[in-house]
């Protein structure tokens, strides 16, 4: 698959179909091979991770008649972090008759991603979006409805049409329950064998093809190998490398990272989304940050005091003329609804000027107001409560303040990772037989994901793309005899065992895994967060390396590896974060431009906007593990724009 391109640099083939954009997926589906129903039972499929992408893929593949084995580290697939998505899911239904179309959703997503995604993939995503809504409604997902009984929509960050379907502030939960129930039916029917509290440790390769995984039973500590004809990773994103993020505590990069070390290319690792509206950090013991849905920006107005001297005052004591509604001032066309990366940078800018409010962390007040007073005045308390009631309650629990009377305080936090395993148009990684879906792959969001697009992508991958492309792959494989023992499986299992022993028996055990994780998080947040700069990145790489060495010398894990041991689980995940963090910095350093979430201080326009360099960087950076973590090999997948012309994003 990896071969030199005509330009002399190394390139990779995305296997993207040619021809008119509208027909690509349809034609490709016809060109793909299918497995006859009678033969499907002969094939075994492993799906790791059972969030939206994994559960929907497993349910669909099981229903087709394959033998599916699923794995999740939680105690039930229903707990995957997809559940926390609040705002909604986009679909180009044009129910609002406001000019929406598949083409417009495609265009918005490509533009929102700052022209760093593949046209073919994004178009397919927009095309499939409508079927997702049909599927979910038929499963009983209770989307919001109008009094007429028809489905309701709202507009969402970065879009000028109302195409977002939502279920109060719990859209992710409702969609996941739909996929989980579909999966439960297949478990009952015997097509899926599910393993909860079971974590993938490594990938098993036979002759360079993915043929199984080694898992660890988190209750007994037992390592086991599982063989299959194909492995699908839907294990989510790596935002927890930052320690503090809006991800669930268990979210980790271990499955994708271990696949990467077995040869799968890792694409755009530095593309990490910082979400503007999160509840600010309040103390040192804090274990995670909580997102407040982007939908709040539809009615809430973001402001900070105009004058530094007002920052210690209560918000109600600051006069209207002393408030700076800075997003409305800086971006009059989109106002509070600018895309996430732009809103986050604006908030950082205000706080760096010393105009932040709320708790001080390391001497700086990190927060601005999100104010609903005007919306309550115009629409009434009941209307606002109906729309955002559960979010307001959540805020009240956490911040001990009432957003109905006092403006919320918000600050950006790590939320989503656009980077992930490199996949071709079929969602297959650079390892033959290893597929990746959902947040675990890099495919559709470029350098910045638009709101309400993650649920859409996870479900498009799981319900509609993977079932076709995995079948196409299987049609070309002879079924593996999974009852036999394979030396490759034994070797991989042995290596996993040794790694666990190494963690359990550090030579000079002193510090807990979390202590290391917090330090790693600080380094990566400073260097590879909302703003990136050469010298800071170079220092971070050196710091990460030395902290990583210290980790392997000093990590302290009590208890045994032969029973449930959450300290050991965490240590294993952190060990992988330490390696990934270095690659993120290397990628950020190599990308000498600003685009989307990636703001290099050296490449910012005079009025503070990101400056892309399309001539040099209109590519996907796909990194190969070389055996030396500090010397990864870069492959470039050039991005051709045949249907849209990359322009400078302008939300003013």
């Amino acid at each position: 698959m990896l071969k030199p391109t005509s330009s002399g640099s190394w390139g990779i083939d995305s296997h993207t179909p040619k021809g008119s954009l509208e027909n690509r997926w349809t034609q490709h589906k016809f060109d793909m091979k299918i497995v006859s129903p009678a033969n499907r039972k002969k094939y075994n499929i492993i799906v790791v991770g059972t969030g939206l992408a994994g559960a929907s893929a497993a349910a669909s593949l099981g229903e087709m008649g394959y033998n599916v084995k699923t794995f999740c580290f939680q105690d039930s697939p229903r707990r995957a972090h997809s559940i926390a998505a609040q705002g909604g899911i986009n679909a180009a239904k044009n129910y609002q008759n406001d000019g929406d179309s598949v083409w417009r959703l495609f265009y918005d997503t490509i533009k929102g991603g700052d022209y760093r995604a593949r046209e073919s993939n994004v178009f397919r995503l927009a095309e499939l979006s409508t079927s997702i809504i049909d599927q979910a409604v038929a499963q009983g997902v209770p989307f919001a409805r109008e009094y007429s009984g028809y489905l309701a929509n709202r507009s969402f960050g970065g879009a000028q049409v109302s195409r977002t379907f939502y279920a109060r502030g719990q859209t992710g939960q409702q969609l996941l329950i739909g996929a989980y129930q579909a999966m439960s039916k297949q478990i009952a029917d015997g097509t899926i064998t599910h393993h909860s509290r079971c974590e993938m440790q490594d990938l098993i390769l036979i002759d360079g093809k993915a043929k199984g995984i080694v898992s660890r039973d988190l209750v007994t500590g037992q390592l086991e190998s599982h063989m299959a004809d194909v492995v699908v990773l839907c294990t989510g994103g790596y935002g927890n490398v930052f320690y503090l993020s809006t991800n669930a505590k268990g979210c980790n990069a271990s499955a994708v990272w271990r696949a990467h070390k077995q040869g799968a290319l890792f694409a755009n690792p530095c593309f990490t989304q910082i979400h503007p509206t999160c509840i600010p950090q309040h103390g040192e013991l804090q274990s995670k940050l909580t997102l407040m849905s982007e939908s709040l920006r539809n009615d809430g107005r973001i402001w900070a005091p105009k004058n530094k001297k007002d920052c210690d005052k209560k918000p109600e004591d600051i006069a209207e003329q002393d408030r700076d509604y800075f997003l409305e001032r800086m971006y009059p066309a989109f106002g509070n609804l600018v895309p996430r990366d732009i809103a986050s940078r604006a908030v950082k800018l205000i706080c760096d000027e010393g105009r932040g409010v709320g708790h001080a962390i390391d001497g700086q007040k990190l927060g601005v107001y999100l104010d609903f007073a005007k919306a309550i005045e115009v629409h009434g308390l009941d209307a606002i409560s109906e729309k955002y009631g559960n979010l307001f309650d959540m805020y009240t629990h956490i911040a001990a303040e009432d957003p109905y009377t006092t403006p919320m305080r918000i600050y950006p936090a790590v939320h989503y990772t656009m980077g992930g395993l490199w996949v071709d148009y079929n969602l297959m990684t650079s390892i033959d037989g290893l597929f990746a879906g959902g947040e675990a792959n890099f495919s559709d969001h470029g350098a910045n994901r638009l709101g309400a697009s993650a649920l859409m992508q996870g479900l498009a991958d799981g319900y509609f793309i993977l079932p076709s492309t995995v079948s196409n792959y299987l049609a070309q494989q002879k079924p593996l005899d999974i009852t036999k023992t394979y030396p490759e499986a034994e070797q991989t299992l042995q290596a996993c065992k040794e790694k666990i022993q190494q963690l359990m028996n550090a030579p000079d055990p002193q510090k807990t895994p979390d202590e290391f994780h917090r330090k790693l998080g600080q380094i990566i947040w400073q260097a590879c967060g909302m703003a990136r700069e050469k010298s800071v990145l170079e220092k971070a790489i050196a710091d990460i390396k030395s902290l990583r060495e210290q980790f392997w010398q000093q990590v302290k894990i009590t208890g045994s590896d032969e029973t449930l041991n959450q300290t050991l689980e965490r240590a294993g995940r952190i060990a992988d974060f330490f390696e990934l963090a270095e690659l993120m910095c290397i990628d950020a350093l190599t990308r000498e431009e600003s685009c989307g979430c990636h703001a290099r201080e050296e490449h910012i326009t005079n009025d503070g906007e990101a400056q892309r360099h399309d001539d040099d960087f209109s590519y996907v950076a796909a990194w190969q593990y070389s055996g030396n973590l500090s010397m990864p090999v870069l492959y470039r997948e050039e991005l051709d724009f045949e249907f849209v012309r990359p322009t400078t994003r302008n939300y003013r």
Partner: protein
Amino acid sequence: MIYKLHIWRQDNVHSKGAFQQYDIDVSEDTSLLEMLDALNEQLIENDKEAIAFDFDCREGICGSCNLVINGTPHGKHQGTTTCQQYMRDYADEAELWIEPWRATAFPIIKDLIVDRTAFEKIIQAGGFIEIRTGSAGEANTIPIDKEVSDAAFDSATCIGCAACVAACPNASATLFVAAKVTHLSMLPQGKMDKKRAEKLLTAMDEQGFGGCSNYRECERVCPKEISVSAITVMNRLLY
């Protein structure tokens, strides 16, 4: 604030557990689970094994966390989960007793972690609407009365945490079952399966949960405030 903690420790399902006592000093802005994190850090530093407890999203939606705090599942702050309890909620208490869910159907795995696989079995018995991927018709073909849709939603908010079981003197899962049945059976798409209630209740019995005798403790502790009227609606579907 300084607390005296009594925490249930148990090696595995076969061993006998007991409360162990710990002291901790934390600020009121700390969440209850972050307080346990801090305690675990101290235990590891002192060469002791960390206390095992379930958690994941820490924003009250995934349903992983499940502690009984001073006798109340999910703690004193009602309408939310264990992870959303803050130490300020316990400012006037000096001692906290922290234990796992207690129910025959939920064997203890370790310390504060229980096995809730029984809930999975209930859903597998029929807690779904059958629809082949890709075979669904256009979503707006069937309008659904907003009131019906909203009521279905109220039940659909169940996060499967099982606090209802932990609070029930019979360790019954009737509210969990009723929430699933009413969520699905109220919607036109879910009406087809007339036996759903019966199938789920049978599975509940088989998994070792008790029956409902109207204590209504379940709705008191439900983090999503699902009402026992869901049980009434389900009962009407049965007969």
